[in-house]
């Protein structure tokens, strides 16, 4: 089944037309049954997916430590007077009283230690809460402490931070909060009303674009049905075979994108074929010209990503399964459902007005600069090697997660709180502060409060066993013990100033002095992402390599291995470098965008190369082959990409965090893929084209020159 073969589909088309109603009814029934029996549950937060594969979470749970969801409330006020001081203190107390809140870290939770005396040898170590002081006293005390509380109050007492630790996301909408405030958004639940509105708007845009491009409603309705069927069947089959019922909402876009572009290759061929032939022959042309390259793209996807299904990671498994199934199901639908449906219709305006674009591109690309092409490819490979060095080097410095004024919560188990244990915490704190310097605001731990109490205790000097006993006693007296430790572990809070959290997590994971456990969800997710970075990148690289090899096998050409690998890698490599440069954190949305890009780029590679080599095989000139390639494959890719970029850009404005990201990343990656398909792939095909040499060797006149 090579690119020069033309399958005979006459009988097949007759059968399809004969049973078209049954075929359409069968798919309708199948979709309804599968959708009812294996209904997936969609989530818009990726936390669950990352945490499923988290080794750190496993270890934390094995120790029976509870995990927390940390959120930050930022309150901005105009004047910090006595009344406002009390309002902010009341807010702290109200936050603590909210259901599900475990603790709140703010200026009003801080314990300021000092020695109070009334003269005459009457003296006692005292712990004061910031909320119990008057405004003047508080300002004075914080000034004396050189404002060590910059992470909870800044801007001259105009911005206050409350770090809320709870079992889950804490809803604060019913609280009376002074001034103006910012609070983390709960992106764990989907606002279906909002999402439906955007989906409707997206559909209207697609209707409008299809009308503009094809001047026919058939395109839109057949695309809508094809994509809906493909999406429903993909996810219900995933639920059926894996038992995983929870699917990340952005994975929907993998199937939508793949199904749309696959559909367009078929539909477009049917549409334009009616310019010269009747609708029956148009169906034959649609199938015998598109079924082979489409079959190879599905095989490419299955073989390229098939091995990833067996990796022990739900994220990788779901991503690869979504792509494989949507590609295979899309192919089957385009072979059966689509011809059955289209056989009812006829196109009035089969002429497409945007063919000139192909001529312009052909004219420019025939005169390509070889040095420039090789320079570009060389630079891309240097970037690839650099990315590999960053990822596989001594320290993984490719993915960054820059955070400002946040916290990390740790648990350190202990058998006995004694001097060596406190010193080990001190050593850890010193090593951490030495390594990250100003990137860390401070470390709040048993050792900090013990030292603080000991420094203010006139009865003790250096921290020895006796001094430690006294400090622990005062902690009990002022009710601080529960805040700093429980019966099996101590709590450590690291207040981050402005830091690459991935680097900090890596350092913490490799610190040998103490046994530490992450207990806040954000850090657990961060460590899971850090741990899986190499696995995910290796999976992606492996998929690219397989795609390259299979492309070479399909065309029986070693050069096509390079073309297949390069064309698929270019958008990902360049996107990766942009991500690295802008220090954008790794997210599931990013991986999904990369998967979509991989799917689209590999489809385009096969379809472009199929058309180009087919025309060259039948003796067309390079110019003619390129023009035909653009006409039959380039236009569907452009239409598909433009529609997807528009829809994804629209998602960027949905205000649903996950969809914003998938919108931005996918739009960028699809644009990069489109540019690669239009400007790099055809030039690479020209570069490896050996037909001219072949004809010369056979001493035959090149028939169409």
């Amino acid at each position, binding site marked *: 089944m090579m690119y020069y073969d033309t399958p005979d589909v006459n009988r097949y088309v007759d059968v399809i037309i004969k049973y078209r109603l049954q075929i359409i009814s069968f798919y309708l029934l199948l979709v309804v049954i599968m959708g009812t029996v294996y209904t997936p549950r969609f989530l818009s937060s990726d936390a669950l997916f990352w945490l499923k594969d988290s080794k750190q979470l496993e270890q934390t749970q094995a120790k029976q430590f509870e995990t927390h969801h940390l959120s930050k409330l930022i309150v901005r006020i105009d004047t910090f007077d006595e009344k406002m001081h009390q309002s902010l203190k009341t807010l702290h107390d109200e936050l603590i009283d909210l259901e599900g809140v475990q603790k709140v870290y703010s200026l009003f939770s801080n314990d300021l230690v000092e020695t109070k005396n009334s003269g005459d*040898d009457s003296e006692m170590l005292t712990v004061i809460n910031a909320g119990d002081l008057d405004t003047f006293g508080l300002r004075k005390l914080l000034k004396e402490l050189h404002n060590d509380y910059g992470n909870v109050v800044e801007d001259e007492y105009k911005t206050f931070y409350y770090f809320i630790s709870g079992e889950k996301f804490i809803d604060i909408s019913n609280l009376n909060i002074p001034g103006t405030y910012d609070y983390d958004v709960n992106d764990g639940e989907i606002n279906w009303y909002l999402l439906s509105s955007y989906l409707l708007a997206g559909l209207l845009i697609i209707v409008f674009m299809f009308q503009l491009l094809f001047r026919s409603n058939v395109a839109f309705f057949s695309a809508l049905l094809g994509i809906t069927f493909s999406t429903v069947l993909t996810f219900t089959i995933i639920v059926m075979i894996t038992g995983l019922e929870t699917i990340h909402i952005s994975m929907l876009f993998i199937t939508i994108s793949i199904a749309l572009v696959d559909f367009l290759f078929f539909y477009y061929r049917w549409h334009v074929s009616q310019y010269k032939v009747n609708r029956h022959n148009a169906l034959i042309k649609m199938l015998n010209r598109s079924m082979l390259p489409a079959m190879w793209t599905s095989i490419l996807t299955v073989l390229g990503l098939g091995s990833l299904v067996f990796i022990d990671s739900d994220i990788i498994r779901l991503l690869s399964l979504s792509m494989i199934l949507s590609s295979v199901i899309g192919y089957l639908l385009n072979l059966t459902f689509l011809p059955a449906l289209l056989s009812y219709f006829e196109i009035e305006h089969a002429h497409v007005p945007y063919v000139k674009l192909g001529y312009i591109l052909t004219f420019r690309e025939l005169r390509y600069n070889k040095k420039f092409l090789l320079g570009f490819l060389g630079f891309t490979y240097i970037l690839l090697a650099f990315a590999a060095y960053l990822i596989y080097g001594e320290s993984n410095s490719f993915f960054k997660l820059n955070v400002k004024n946040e916290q990390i919560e740790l648990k350190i188990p202990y058998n006995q709180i004694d001097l060596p244990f406190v010193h080990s915490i001190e050593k850890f704190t010193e090593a951490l502060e030495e390594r990250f310097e100003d990137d860390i605001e401070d470390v709040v731990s048993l050792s900090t409060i013990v030292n603080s109490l000991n420094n203010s205790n006139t009865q003790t000097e250096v921290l020895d066993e006796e001094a430690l006993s006294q400090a622990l006693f005062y902690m009990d007296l002022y009710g601080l013990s529960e805040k700093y430790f429980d019966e099996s572990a101590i709590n450590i809070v690291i207040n981050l100033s402005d830091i690459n959290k991935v680097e900090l997590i890596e350092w913490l994971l490799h610190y040998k002095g103490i046994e530490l456990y992450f207990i806040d969800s954000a850090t657990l997710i961060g460590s899971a992402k850090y741990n899986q970075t190499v696995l995910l990148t290796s999976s992606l690289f492996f998929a690219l390599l397989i795609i390259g090899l299979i492309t070479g096998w399909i065309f029986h050409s070693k050069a096509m291995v390079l073309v297949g690998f390069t064309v698929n890698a270019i958008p990902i490599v360049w996107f990766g470098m942009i991500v690295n440069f802008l220090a954008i954190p790794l997210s599931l949305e990013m991986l999904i965008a990369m998967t979509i890009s991989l799917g689209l780029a590999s489809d385009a590679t096969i379809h472009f190369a199929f058309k180009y080599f087919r025309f060259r095989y039948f003796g067309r000139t390079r110019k003619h082959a390129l023009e035909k390639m653009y006409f039959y494959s380039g236009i569907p890719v452009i239409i598909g990409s433009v529609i997807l970029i528009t829809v994804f850009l629209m998602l960027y404005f949905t205000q649903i965090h996950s969809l914003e990201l998938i919108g931005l990343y996918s739009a960028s990656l699809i644009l990069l893929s489109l540019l690669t398909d239009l400007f790099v792939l055809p030039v690479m095909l020209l570069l490896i084209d050996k037909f001219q040499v072949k004809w010369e060797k056979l001493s035959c006149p090149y028939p169409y020159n």
Partner: protein
Amino acid sequence: MIKAIILTLFLMDTMLFANEQTAHKHLSYELSLPLLQSIHNDAIILGNGKKFLYVFIDPLCPYSRKFITMVSKNPKMLSKYQYRILLYSIPHMESTEVVSAIYISPNPVETLLQIMVEDKVLYDKGNVMTKAKVNRIDAVAKKIDVYKRPYIFIMK
């Protein structure tokens, strides 16, 4: 001129004594413990915890009162620690008769809490027994250098 001289002398005086810190001779744990155990019977016991503390207090001292109030009103502090309270007057407080009133009462703990927590101060001239107690505590406190109240000593 005279004003300037007085001011200069005042400033010199301030500079000389401002940073003066009272040096306390800290007696080691090993030496302190037998001394405290020698006056164990003179202590008033509060709480029933497994950790033992000796606490020197003056019943009229404001921070000793704060300490006793905090401890006596906190069930956790009473169940975790046992306080062996030694009454040791601060000279300026003139609390000798209050100390005697506590020691002489049939239930010293109750009287102590009545005076220190409920602020119902009682006085008594005392007797030979109370004076002997006060003297024993005074002798040990001086050896240990109990320079403030409350002064706590936690047993390992």
